[in-house]
C-alpha cells in the first residue's frame, strides 16, 4: 500500500477491483465502511462475481475475468477526452511533458523492438530524448506529438466505451457511470483510493493491470494524498515484510537488485545500479545504492568485508537467469535440481498445475519441509485416494518434515500491508519438539559450517565467515536480528560538511538510512528498515495509538518503512508552492523553512518549493511515470487476452495472432501444449478466497472446517440450467491439465456476459481445499490452473483460464 489501512477512511471514493476486501481482508475493509458513514464516500466494485464487497457497494458492475486493462484503458480515454484530469499535478509531478525517442512505435498490438522468437522486447526506443547534459527533454506545453501526454492520449483513444464493453462484457452504461464517479476525483481536493489484491496480480498482464490504475491515479492527482494511493491488499500477515527482506532471487534485502553474471566486479555492479538524475536538481535517491549495498555486506560478512575485497562482493551468488518459483519447478521438472526446501509454503496446493508440481517433486533426491502443519506438499508422495493418485513405492525422494512454531510461539515483527512493522511477543512454546524458524535455520547452517570447517569442500569462505554475532549461536534472538536489520555504526559516522562533528558514535544504532555510509563504517541488514531499532530502542514495539492529525496516522504506533513515513510520495499532497491540495486533509505543507505536517516528509526537509525538487524521489526523473521504460511488456499497458481465452482473437488486434495474449509473457517448452481452447473448454474459470478460510492453513483448524467444510464451485443460474445442474449436485470441473470434483453452488452472483458477440459464462472456484486437513478431503483447485505467469513478476495466471463442467 502506498497509504495504509486506517487512511482508507479519508477517501471520497473507494474502488475495489481485482480483490474482495470484505471477504479477504474484513477488518481492514471496515475503514471503507467508516469512510461511507463519516465522509459519505462512495464504494464502487467491479468484479466477475457479485461479491461480499459488492453487496455493500454504492455501485457494482460485472467484468469478464482477465479484461481489466480494457476497462481501465477506457477510463484513461474517458478522463483525457473529457478533460477530467488534475492539470497542475500531471504537468509537474508526472513525466507527461517528457519527450520520447522518435523511434518509439506501437503497431497492431506490438511495441517497437519486439523479438517474437525470444518473446521479449529490445527497449532501446522506449526512452527519453536527452539533451547534451544527459537530462531528459520536456515540452511543458504538452503539445509535442512525441511527449508522453500526447502519446498516451493517442494510445488510449482506441479504448472507446463501445470496444470496452465488447471486450469486458461490462454494460456500456455501467462503465460510463463508473467513469463519471472516478472523474469527480480529478478535483484537487477530492481523492479516490484503490483497493486491489490477487485478482489483479494473478494474470499474465498482472503488473500492467496495476500500472493502468496507477496512471489513472496520477491523472487524477490522487497519489500522495490522504485517502488516495494504490493499495495492494496483500496475503499473509508478514508477506510485506518477507518481500522487503527479499527472499527471492532478483533482489537482496531492501530491494537491492542482485548481481548477475554480467556484473563482473564490485565497481561494475555498483555503477550499473547507481543512476544519474534525469532532471536537474532532483533527489534521485537511488544514487545512495553503494551505501545500502556495502552496509548490507558488512551485516552479512562483518570484519571479512573490507574495502579491498569489494566488501566480499564475489561471495554473493550471481544469477545466470530467472529463478522464480515457476522457473524453479520447471528446472526441477527437467531433473536439474537435487534438493529443495519449503518453509511455511505448500507449493503442491499453491502453485499452478498440481500434476506438474507433483511430478517435479518426485524427481528430487531430498525435500525438506519446515512447517507448523502437516501440509499437502509434505505428502505429495502418498496415495490419498482420487485426490492424490500416486504410487509411493515409485517415488525415491527422501522427505524430511521439521515442526516449526506458529505466530504465538515466537517474538518478532510482522509488517502489515500498510508497511507498518509491529512487534509481537511470545505467548507459549510450540507443541512437542517444535522450534522457531530462526532456530531451525541456525541449526542447519551451524551444522553445515561445522562440516565445512572439519572436512572442507567447495568454496567454504562465505560459509565460514558469515557474521554470526549472536549471544546464543544456536538461537539468534529476534531482538538481535532486528537490530542487525536496522543498522549500526562500526566507526564514528561524521558530518560530511564538518568531519569533526560526530553524527553517530561507533557501536550505536543508526537513527535512519540517511546515516549509512559506503566506506564500511556502517552495517545495515535492510536499509529501508534503517532506524526501526535506533538508540531509542525497538520502535516496532511502540504502542501509542494517539492520532493528533485525526487522519489515522498514529506515528507512534509501530514503525512504518521508510523512515516511519505513513503515506508514500506525500510531497505530492501539496501544490508547487507547498500548500496542501486539500486544506481539510493536509498531509504535508511547506512552513517557510521546512516541510512539516502530519507525516514524515517524503522529501529533503529543507527543499524549498522554488528549488523544484519533485515528489517521486526514488525515480531519477523526480516525477512519476505515465510512460514506463522499465516494464517487460510495454511502456503503456495494453489489453491482451488471458492465455486461455474464450475469444478467438484479441478484439483490439483481431488480425494479429501474436498480440492475442501478452507477447512478452514467458512460456516454457511443453506448457504451450497444456493450454486448452474454447472449443473443448468453453467456460471462464477464476479462483478466489472465502471469508472463513485462509489459503491452505485453516483447513487444519476445527472451527473453520465447521464453517466451510467442503470444496464447492459457484456457477450462474443460466449455466446451471443449460447443464442440468442443481444446487448441491456433485460436479466435475475439467481443464486441459486435470479435473476436480466439488459441490455445485448455483447462484445469481455470477451472471453470463455478452462478450464480442457471444455469451460467456464464468465459474468461480474457491481454493482452500486439499487432501490434508480437518475439512472433508478434497481436490486441489490448482490442479486446473495454467503454468504461465505475468511478464514482469512471473505470478501465475490463476484468475482467468478455461474449463468445462458436467455433473459428476
Amino acid at each position, binding site marked *: 500500500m502506498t497509504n495504509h489501512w486506517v487512511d482508507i477512511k479519508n477517501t471520497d471514493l473507494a474502488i475495489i477491483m481485482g480483490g474482495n476486501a470484505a471477504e479477504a481482508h474484513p477488518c481492514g475493509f471496515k475503514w471503507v465502511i467508516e469512510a461511507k458513514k463519516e465522509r459519505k464516500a462512495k464504494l464502487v466494485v467491479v468484479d466477475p462475481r457479485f461479491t461480499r464487497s459488492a453487496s455493500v457497494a454504492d455501485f457494482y458492475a460485472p467484468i469478464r475475468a482477465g479484461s481489466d486493462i480494457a476497462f481501465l484503458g477506457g477510463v484513461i480515454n474517458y478522463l483525457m477526452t473529457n478533460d477530467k484530469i488534475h492539470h497542475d499535478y500531471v504537468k509537474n509531478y508526472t513525466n507527461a511533458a517528457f519527450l520520447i525517442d522518435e523511434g518509439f512505435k506501437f503497431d497492431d498490438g506490438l511495441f517497437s523492438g519486439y523479438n517474437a522468437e525470444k518473446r521479449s522486447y529490445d527497449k532501446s526506443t522506449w526512452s527519453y530524448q536527452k539533451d547534451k547534459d544527459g537530462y531528459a527533454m520536456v515540452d511543458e506545453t504538452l503539445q509535442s506529438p512525441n511527449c508522453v501526454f500526447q502519446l498516451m492520449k493517442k494510445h488510449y483513444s482506441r479504448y472507446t466505451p463501445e470496444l470496452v464493453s465488447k471486450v469486458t462484457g461490462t454494460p456500456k452504461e455501467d462503465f460510463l457511470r463508473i467513469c463519471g464517479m472516478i472523474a469527480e476525483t480529478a478535483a484537487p481536493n477530492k481523492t479516490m483510493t484503490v483497493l486491489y489484491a490477487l485478482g489483479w496480480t494473478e494474470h499474465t498482464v498482472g503488473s500492467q493491470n496495476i500500472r493502468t490504475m496507477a496512471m489513472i491515479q496520477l491523472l487524477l492527482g490522487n497519489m500522495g494524498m490522504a485517502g488516495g494511493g494504490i493499495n495492494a491488499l496483500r496475503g499473509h500477515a508478514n508477506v510485506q515484510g518477507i518481500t522487503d527482506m527479499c527472499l527471492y532471487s532478483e533482489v537482496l534485502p531492501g530491494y537491492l537488485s542482485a548481481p548477475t553474471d554480467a556484473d563482473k566486479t564490485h565497481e561494475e555492479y555498483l555503477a550499473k545500479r547507481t543512476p544519474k538524475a534525469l532532471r536537474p536538481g532532483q533527489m534521485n535517491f537511488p544514487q545512495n545504492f553503494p551505501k545500502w549495498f556495502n552496509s548490507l555486506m558488512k551485516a552479512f560478512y562483518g570484519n571479512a568485508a573490507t574495502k579491498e575485497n569489494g566488501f566480499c562482493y564475489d561471495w554473493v551468488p550471481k544469477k545466470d537467469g530467472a529463478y522464480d518459483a515457476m522457473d524453479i519447478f520447471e528446472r526441477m521438472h527437467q531433473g536439474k535440481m537435487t534438493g529443495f526446501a519449503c518453509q511455511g509454503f505448500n507449493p503442491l496446493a499453491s502453485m499452478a498445475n498440481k500434476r506438474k508440481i507433483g511430478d517435479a517433486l518426485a524427481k528430487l533426491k531430498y525435500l525438506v519441509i519446515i512447517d507448523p502443519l502437516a501440509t499437502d506438499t509434505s505428502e505429495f*508422495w502418498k496415495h490419498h485416494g482420487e485426490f492424490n493418485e500416486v504410487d509411493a513405492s515409485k517415488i525415491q525422494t527422501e522427505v524430511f518434515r521439521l515442526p516449526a512454531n506458529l505466530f504465538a510461539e515466537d517474538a518478532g515483527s510482522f509488517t502489515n500491508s500498510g508497511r507498518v512493522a509491529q512487534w509481537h511477543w511470545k505467548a507459549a512454546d510450540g507443541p512437542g519438539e517444535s522450534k522457531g524458524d530462526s532456530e531451525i535455520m541456525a541449526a542447519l547452517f551451524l551444522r553445515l559450517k561445522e562440516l565445512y570447517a572439519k572436512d572442507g569442500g567447495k568454496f567454504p569462505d562465505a560459509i565460514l565467515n558469515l557474521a554470526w554475532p549472536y549471544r546464543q549461536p544456536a538461537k539468534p534472538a529476534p531482538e538481535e536480528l532486528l537490530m542487525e536489520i536496522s543498522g549500526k555504526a562500526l566507526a564514528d559516522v561524521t558530518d560530511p560538511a564538518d568531519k569533526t562533528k560526530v553524527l553517530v558514535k561507533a557501536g550505536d544504532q543508526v537513527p535512519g538510512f540517511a546515516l549509512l555510509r559506503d566506506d564500511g563504517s556502517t552495517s545495515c541488514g535492510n536499509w529501508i528498515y534503517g532506524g526501526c531499532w535506533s538508540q531509542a530502542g525497538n520502535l516496532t514495539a511502540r504502542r501509542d495509538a494517539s492520532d493528533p492529525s485525526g487522519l489515522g496516522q498514529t506515528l507512534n504506533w509501530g514503525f512504518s518503512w521508510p523512515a516511519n513515513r505513513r503515506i508514500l510520495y506525500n510531497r505530492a499532497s501539496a501544490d508547487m508552492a507547498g500548500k496542501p491540495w486539500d486544506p481539510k486533509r493536509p498531509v504535508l505543507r511547506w512552513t517557510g523553512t521546512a516541510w512539516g505536517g502530519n507525516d514524515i516528509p517524503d522529501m529533503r526537509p529543507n527543499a524549498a518549493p522554488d528549488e523544484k525538487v519533485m515528489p517521486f524521489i526514488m525515480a531519477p526523473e523526480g516525477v512519476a511515470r505515465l510512460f514506463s521504460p522499465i516494464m517487460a511488456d510495454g511502456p503503456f499497458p495494453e489489453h491482451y487476452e488471458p492465455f486461455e481465452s474464450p475469444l478467438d482473437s484479441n478484439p483490439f488486434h483481431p488480425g494479429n495472432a501474436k498480440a492475442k495474449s501478452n507477447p512478452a509473457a514467458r512460456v516454457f517448452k511443453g506448457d504451450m501444449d497444456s493450454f486448452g481452447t474454447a472449443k473443448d473448454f468453453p467456460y471462464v474459470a477464476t479462483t478466489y478466497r472465502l471469508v472463513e478460510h485462509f489459503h491452505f492453513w485453516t483447513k487444519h483448524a476445527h472451527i473453520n472446517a465447521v464453517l466451510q467444510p467442503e470444496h464447492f464451485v459457484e456457477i450462474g443460474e443460466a449455466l446451471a440450467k443449460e447443464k442440468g445442474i442443481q444446487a448441491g449436485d456433485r460436479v466435475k470441473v475439467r481443464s486441459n491439465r486435470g479435473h476436480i470434483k466439488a459441490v455445485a453452488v448455483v447462484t445469481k452472483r455470477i451472471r453470463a456476459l455478452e462478450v464480442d458477440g457471444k455469451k460467456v459464462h464464468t465459474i468461480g472456484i474457491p481454493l482452500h481445499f486439499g487432501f490434508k486437513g480437518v475439512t472433508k478431503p478434497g481436490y486441489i483447485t490448482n490442479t486446473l490452473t495454467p503454468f504461465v505467469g505475468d511478464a514482469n513478476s512471473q505470478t501465475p495466471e490463476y484468475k482467468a483460464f478455461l474449463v468445462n463442467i458436467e455433473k459428476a
Partner: protein
Amino acid sequence: MQVTRRQFFKICSAGLGGSSIAMLGYSPTAALAEVREFKLARATETRNMCPYCSVSCGVLAYSIGDKSKNAKAEIIHIEGDPDNPVNRGTLCPKGAGLLDMVHSPNRLKYPEVREPGSNEWKRISWDEAIARITKHMKADRDANFIEKNAEGTTVNRWNTFGFLASSAAANEPGYLTSKILRGLGVVALDTQARI
C-alpha cells in the same frame, strides 16, 4: 508491556472499592463462594498478531502458566486487541478461529523422515534430522557448486538446491534465512510474495 488480567482486576477493584461491583450483585461474599476463579483472571495476556491476511490484526493471546520452565504456558483464548488502531479489537471468522489453529490436531510435533519408496513417516530426533539433511546438502553443494562460469567470471552459485520461504515467518527469521541462503550460494530462492 504485559499486564495480566488478574493485575488488571486488582487495579479495577482498588478503584471501584465495593461500590458499583457490589451494586451489580457481585458482593465479595458471593465472589468467595465461587468454586474457582475466572480463567482469564489468572491468565497471562500477550500482545500478538494474527498471522493470516495482511491487515495483521492485533490480538491478545491468553495463556495459563507463566512461561517459565516449570510452568509451561498453554494458550487458552485469543481475542482482538482493542488498542490496535487498525482492527480495534475486531477479528474476522479466520482470526476468531485462531485458537483452533494453535491447537490443530495436524500440528507437527517432532521431526520425521519418509525414506525413498517408503509409504510411511518415521519419527527421528532433531539431531538425526539435521545430520541427515545437512549431509544431503553438503554432498549436493560440493558436487554442483559453480565457482566460475564458462567465461571465467566468479559466480559462486549453487543452483541445484531451491528454497521457498515463508511469508508467515516474522521479519527476523526472514532476514536470517536470506543471509544464510546467500551465504551458501543459493539462487533458486522464492517466496509466497510472488503468488
